[in-house]
């Protein structure tokens, strides 16, 4: 059996540097741009991209951020430290959308992706149709020393996976739990930590929330109850700061709902996508 998902490479400049970005695409209809979590890659969307209820209405596109999955770092990477920033992440999402000719996509992201959709809604409402934030909050305070994620005295893949393993709900199917963790084990050295520079520090978007106009860019936030990184209360506080935003706390799910247990996410997600598919 061959899946309908097709992978290709996109050549474009990001922050003035040439990049070769891998993306996967399937489906037809309203463009739906999918953003993976920190330290992982676009495989997290594998179930959604094989769900005919989604792909019959949406042109789904999941790209691997530079440094992640099959998107290599830019030339000269060895001379510096990878650190994701709000400006780089927003610019990347907009550049990929533009390069692929997407007309005001619905943008759905998880964790760091759920964070950056808030920035897109706040400052680029003309470029997006609506946003869905999975495990989305405007800020997460550090609760462990991220230095261990990139340290010669730990095995990087194992420690990154072990750190996030508890963020998966105890009820998640074993196969999807361990595939989700495998993606983390495959991350490049320092990449997860570099993403967390944005997530746990630089990318504090709380000051921007009040300027989001949900009449121009609807916002839906869906968060699994077992997430102790982006906690349910963090999502609810974020939604409360955005007039008109919708927030749902999902039982039996953790930090990676689309990857750890898509069947449990689906009943919450499909009604949101159905509404967003009908937007002009």
């Amino acid at each position: 059996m061959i899946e309908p998902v097709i992978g290709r490479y996109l050549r474009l400049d990001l922050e003035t540097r040439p990049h070769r970005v891998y993306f996967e695409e399937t489906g037809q209809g309203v463009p739906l741009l999918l953003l993976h979590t920190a330290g992982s890659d676009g495989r997290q969307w594998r179930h959604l991209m094989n769900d005919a209820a989604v792909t019959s209405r949406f042109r789904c596109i999941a790209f691997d951020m530079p440094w992640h999955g099959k998107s290599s770092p830019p030339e000269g990477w060895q001379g510096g430290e990878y650190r994701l920033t709000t400006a780089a992440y927003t610019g990347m999402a907009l550049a990929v959308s533009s390069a692929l000719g997407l007309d005001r996509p619905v943008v759905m992201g998880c964790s760091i992706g759920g964070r950056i959709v808030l920035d897109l809604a706040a400052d680029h409402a003309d470029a997006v149709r609506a946003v869905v934030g999975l495990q989305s909050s405007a800020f997460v305070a550090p609760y462990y020393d991220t230095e261990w994620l990139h340290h010669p005295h730990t095995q990087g893949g194992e420690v990154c996976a072990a750190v996030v393993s508890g963020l998966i709900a105890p009820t998640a199917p074993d196969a999807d739990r361990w595939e989700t963790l495998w993606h983390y084990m495959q991350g490049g050295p320092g990449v997860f930590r570099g993403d967390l520079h944005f997530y746990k520090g630089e990318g504090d978007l709380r000051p921007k929330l009040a300027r989001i106009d949900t009449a121009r860019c609807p916002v839906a936030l869906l968060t699994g109850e077992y997430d102790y990184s982006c906690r349910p209360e963090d999502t609810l506080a974020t939604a409360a700061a955005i007039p008109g935003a919708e927030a749902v706390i999902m039982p039996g799910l953790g930090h990676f709902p689309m990857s750890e247990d898509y069947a449990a996410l689906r009943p919450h997600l499909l009604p949101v996508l159905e509404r967003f598919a009908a937007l002009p």
Partner: protein
Amino acid sequence: MNLAALPARVAATPGLARWGRHLTAEVLVEAGERRWILSVRDGALVRAEAAPAIMPRYDLALRFDPAGLEKFLQSPPPPGWHDLMALMRQGALQVEGDVQPFMAHLFWFKGVFALLRESAA
């Protein structure tokens, strides 16, 4: 919390020895007034006994808030109390001393303490 059966349970869980194959450490586990020492050799938990009252020797300490540990041990545990790092996020677990063995063998530590939950259920 009764740790007496833990060495046998760890030995009966094959994946743990692989995650912990390079882990050799004395680990103090503390919950309020109660203290134990876990003796780990190459990923095998060879002893889990009450810590000596005088001059206990250990490489790292896991100090639990007793109420937080009680929630962690529930089966199933409530959201937000279901993982060692969730307890750290809640301020209900402090990892002190040489943290490197804990972080380098985090799957082992998480797996072992999850077994404790099953025996408590």
